[in-house]
């Protein structure tokens, strides 16, 4: 396992507007949780701090808790409240 974990973070809908982008590579030290990645992502871009501290997230396209561990190469999506239907 590498010392540094690279996670592909995705921003959707209003979070994408806030972060000014749709994705970003976030690098955290190992071990790390989804919450650690969120914390770092919120600090990386002006505006992104307005994303909630504890947003809904999906890890590798499955709903996940913020306490879930992340691994190198994971995809972590920050999901605003869903509004389908």
């Amino acid at each position, binding site marked *: 396992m590498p010392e540094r974990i690279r996670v592909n973070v995705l921003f959707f809908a209003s979070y994408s507007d*806030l972060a000014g982008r749709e994705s970003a590579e976030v690098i955290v030290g190992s071990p790390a949780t989804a919450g650690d990645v969120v914390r770092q992502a919120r600090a990386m871009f002006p505006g992104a701090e307005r994303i909630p501290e504890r947003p809904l997230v999906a890890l590798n396209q499955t709903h996940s808790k913020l306490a879930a561990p992340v691994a190198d190469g994971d995809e972590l999506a920050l999901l605003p409240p869903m509004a389908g239907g």
Partner: protein
Amino acid sequence: MAFLVRRPIDERALVQRVAAPDRGGIACFLGTVRNHHANREVRRLSYSAYEPMAEAECRRLLDEAASRWPAAIALEHRLGDLAIGDVAVAVVAAAAHREAAFEACRYVMDQLKHRVPIWKREHYADGTVAWVDPTGAQALNAPAEVSHG
């Protein structure tokens, strides 16, 4: 099978997909675009999604419903720009008995709203645009007031 589509939804085709001679009850739900939301006049809207996850989540949701009720279920959600009255989502559940059909249909709709990563951006008559937040959280409405026009 794609659950997300970028063309008008043909609900009759969905009914055909689940209908069978031993399934006498067919419950359907159509969600159409309303002209008002929270007292604001809506002109049009657009749906977007985290597409690969939304497809996977729809699949999981239908498998789950099919394991709880003896029903065949079809689902489509439209993405892109929609006009007032357009069908945004259709769920059809067919079963031998109407109770299972109704319950499976309603379960899928309720869960879809909570689990499937789809978002809606409304364009209002006053020219503003907002991401719809069904939870009504203030922090999420704020950025939504920014015009994307």
